């Protein structure tokens, strides 16, 4: 799909190819509260299916982007156990990401003029750089690391809602489920860090330009 995308870009830029930039906020239910800037290249494969390549870079400094939820959980857990030095929450933070996706619109909108818009179904794969930190609580939350750096792979599936005005500019809102294998929630450093399938909800907003 990526090769088809690049070939299509190279051959013609007047077939509905779109480029864009976006912003992704942290997931409120996750330990990573990093702000991510996104760049998109999209090209139609058929009249209803569009392929997309998205690159993301976390502009938040790490480990400051560890979420307030993680810090609060570490604090209350440290108070609850006898030896708070044993309490350490493993937090996985994203540094970069690359997503290859395809979206499907029921209605053909590739060459439409004027106001268009509607929901699309999205699915694809994601590759991202992960940095793992250990969060402890002494007088306050203190993080150490990264204790491990890795490249992770996952799947994304969800929906987007886009709207295009009279011009070639569009705005898109995305709601994606990201499925990855990540460390389970453990607060004790002696406890085995087993990875399990984890789902996080990613919302982002994009500005798109049709070339």
């Amino acid at each position: 799909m990526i090769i088809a995308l690049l070939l299509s870009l190279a051959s013609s830029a007047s077939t509905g190819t779109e480029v864009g930039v976006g912003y992704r906020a942290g997931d409120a239910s996750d330990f990573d509260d990093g702000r991510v800037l996104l760049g998109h290249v999209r090209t139609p494969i058929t009249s209803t299916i569009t392929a997309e390549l998205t690159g993301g870079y976390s502009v938040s400094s790490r480990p400051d982007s560890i979420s307030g939820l993680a810090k609060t959980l570490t604090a209350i857990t440290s108070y609850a156990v006898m030896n708070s030095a044993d309490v350490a929450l493993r937090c996985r933070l994203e540094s970069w990401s690359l997503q290859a996706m395809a979206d499907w619109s029921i209605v053909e909108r590739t060459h439409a003029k004027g106001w268009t818009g509607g929901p699309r179904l999205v699915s694809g794969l994601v590759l991202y750089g992960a940095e793992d930190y250990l969060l402890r609580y002494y007088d306050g939350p203190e993080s150490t690391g990264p204790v491990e750096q890795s490249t992770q792979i996952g799947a994304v599936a969800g929906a987007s809602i886009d709207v295009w005005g009279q011009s070639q500019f569009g705005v898109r809102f995305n709601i994606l489920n990201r499925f990855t294998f990540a460390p389970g929630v453990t607060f004790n450093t002696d406890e085995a860090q087993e990875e399990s399938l984890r789902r996080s909800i990613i919302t982002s907003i994009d500005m798109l330009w049709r070339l």
Partner: protein
Amino acid sequence: MRTQSLFVLAGCLSLTTPAAATNRTVSGGIGSIVNDPFLKQKIVSVGLQYHPQARPNTRPTVVFGADALYSPDFGSNDFRPLTTKLIENISVSPDISTISYALRGNIVVYPGSYSAGSVETKVGIGTSIGAVKTTDSLEALDVDRSSEIATATMNQIHPCSGLLIVGEIWRQTTGLRLRWDTILFIETVNSTTLEMKNNGSLMLDLMVRL
């Protein structure tokens, strides 16, 4: 303030103007709250929408609506793994309250719509206000009904507001709507803790034009 009142009055008058062609839809949907770290609540909803403008294709369209949502309480089955771990392994009880039901009115603005053959798509953004009832989980608080502090604020009704982003696909009189819907409110948990909640839900609605 006076200008705002005039706009509200004009909006109310437009609802009753005989010349305005009317268009009503009903909707029913399912979904879940997706941004709560402790709970995975499921939601069912029903709604009624009123379109003062019958032909929305040439200008922004304003749609007035009302909806009722209900979230069944499945007890500890609604807990996420993190919540279960906190309660069972570490004996730490997060302040958990679940949404029982909500009644809201909303206004959604559709900048335009697009038709291809017999299929029409629309995108809108809006806001809602209303009331939401919440129920605290005594199990998560690790208390029983004898705790007066916990039961005093166990069931509450709060004013709420929210943001709506919707995308719709219509074929003749039937449509599907994808809805990002937030419910913002402030509540008291265990008689002692004030919490501001901003629950975001993803809903899928079936809509029918009457």
